[in-house]
């Protein structure tokens, strides 16, 4: 089976300064890969390049999925449109027949556990968590077979974060989409992914990957916690994960 997404020797530079070099990453259909790395290592840039928002300076990208969607760190909702119109915005260019839109919007809102009674509200009337639910519904409504998550839950509090993670796990199991999940939270990566890829401290390639046992959603909390401790304490791959060098950020 061919890969859903294949990055080969991808590199990028901002203003002549190389931020990414020699990135090789392959994601199989239905596989959720969490990409972790320290702050400022270029994780988000990889997501942008993989999703086609940024043209890489070098390298090759092969996409064999049919339709992608993205959930950003901020909800990025249109402030002048209601939740319903925001979700519908993704459908406009999807080629799906218009008469199915209403039904699909309702379905996606239910998947994202967004109350149908709030669909007529504007983003300003919604809480941060509800806005992110709308953003997730907007991504799921086009029934993508590949979803990019760019640190989607960083701004949420711990309890809400956990519920959102469960929601993504359930959605990925139900819809069988492949995903590239960018995060700097190792626990989040362990809960959500089939495989963890660790980005090099300076963006000079993928330092290594770790396959996680079992399916996401079936792992016990305790197991996730112990695995996290082991990764951070013993695994050299994760040694620099909490290093922060703000000056290097583009």
């Amino acid at each position, binding site marked *: 089976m061919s890969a859903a997404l294949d990055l080969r020797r991808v590199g990028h530079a901002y203003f002549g300064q190389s931020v990414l070099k020699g990135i090789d990453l392959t994601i199989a259909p239905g596989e959720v890969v969490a990409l972790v790395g320290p702050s400022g290592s270029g994780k988000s840039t990889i997501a942008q390049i993989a999703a*086609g928002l940024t043209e890489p300076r070098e390298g090759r990208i092969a996409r064999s999925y049919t339709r992608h969607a993205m959930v950003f760190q901020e909800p990025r909702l*249109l402030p*002048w449109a209601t939740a319903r119109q925001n979700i519908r915005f993704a459908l406009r*260019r999807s080629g799906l027949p218009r008469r199915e839109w209403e039904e699909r919007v309702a379905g996606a809102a239910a998947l994202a556990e967004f109350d149908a009674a709030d669909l007529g509200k504007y983003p300003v009337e919604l809480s941060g968590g509800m806005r992110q639910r709308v953003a997730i519904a907007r991504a799921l409504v*086009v029934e993508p077979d590949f979803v990019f998550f760019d640190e989607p839950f960083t701004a949420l509090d711990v309890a809400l974060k956990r519920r959102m993670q469960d929601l993504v796990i359930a959605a990925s199991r139900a819809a069988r989409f492949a995903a590239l999940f960018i995060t700097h939270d190792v626990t989040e990566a362990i809960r959500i992914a089939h495989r963890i890829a660790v980005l090099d401290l300076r963006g000079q390639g993928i330092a290594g990957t770790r396959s996680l046992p079992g399916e996401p959603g079936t792992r016990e909390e305790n197991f996730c916690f112990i695995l996290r401790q082991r990764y951070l304490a013993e695994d050299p791959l994760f040694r620099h994960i909490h290093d922060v060098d703000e000056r290097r950020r583009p």
Partner: protein
Amino acid sequence: MVAAFIRDRADRLLHFLWSGWAGVAALALLAAAWQAGHERWGGFILPDPLVTVRTAWTLALSPDAQAVLWLTGARALAGFALAAAAGVLIGIAAGYAPAVMRLARPLLTVILGVPPIAWIVLAMMWFGTNGTTVAVVILISATPVVFVSAAEAIATRDRGLDDMAEVFGHGLFGRFWHVDLRQAAAPLFPALALALGTAFKVAVMAEMLANAGGIGGALARARAMLDVPEALAWVLLAVVALLVVEYGLIRPFQGEVERWRRAAQPWGVKR
């Protein structure tokens, strides 16, 4: 669906009319100050406000004066339409292309530096004393404010929304139409209202100096005859005409586009 639409509009209209009380209070204050001035300095300097209103009312009912009002109103609107179109088009181009912005900025400074009165003189010599002169002077005086706000609005747009739209398959035109233009609308409306006010003021001034009829011409005649109540009555009518156009044309449009801002306001402080 239709019932909800009508209910929503009716709700907003009632809110708007209710907010009119504040406006009425402000106008009553102005009228009181006017009356006090009239009693202090006498009818020649400042005529009785009631007499002025009555004169204005008589004028508004006479067909001749209505024709004068229509003439000035049409000229101001034509000039405003030109200025709005030019300002928005060049402004959007400048917002997307920094090179256009850099070229347009100094030109604007030069244009703004020339006093409007000089433009009137020049336009009179170029086009003669007619409506074209008025429209051209409005175009020159009202375009910069629209241009600057359109350019700023596009240049400072939320690029995150553009990226989002691109992910979901929207091309250049889709992003412009559905995302950037809607974002630019918010700062653009106050600028358009300002441009409309400028259009009316400049229209009256240009008419007076170019002797091109309209309200400006009527004002010139009132001045020649030292008829202060009539002059003030014309001023009153010009202001009313501006208010009618602004609240009949620009504000409803703005209300439609900015419906979501109202939703953000808690109960009791809706303005």
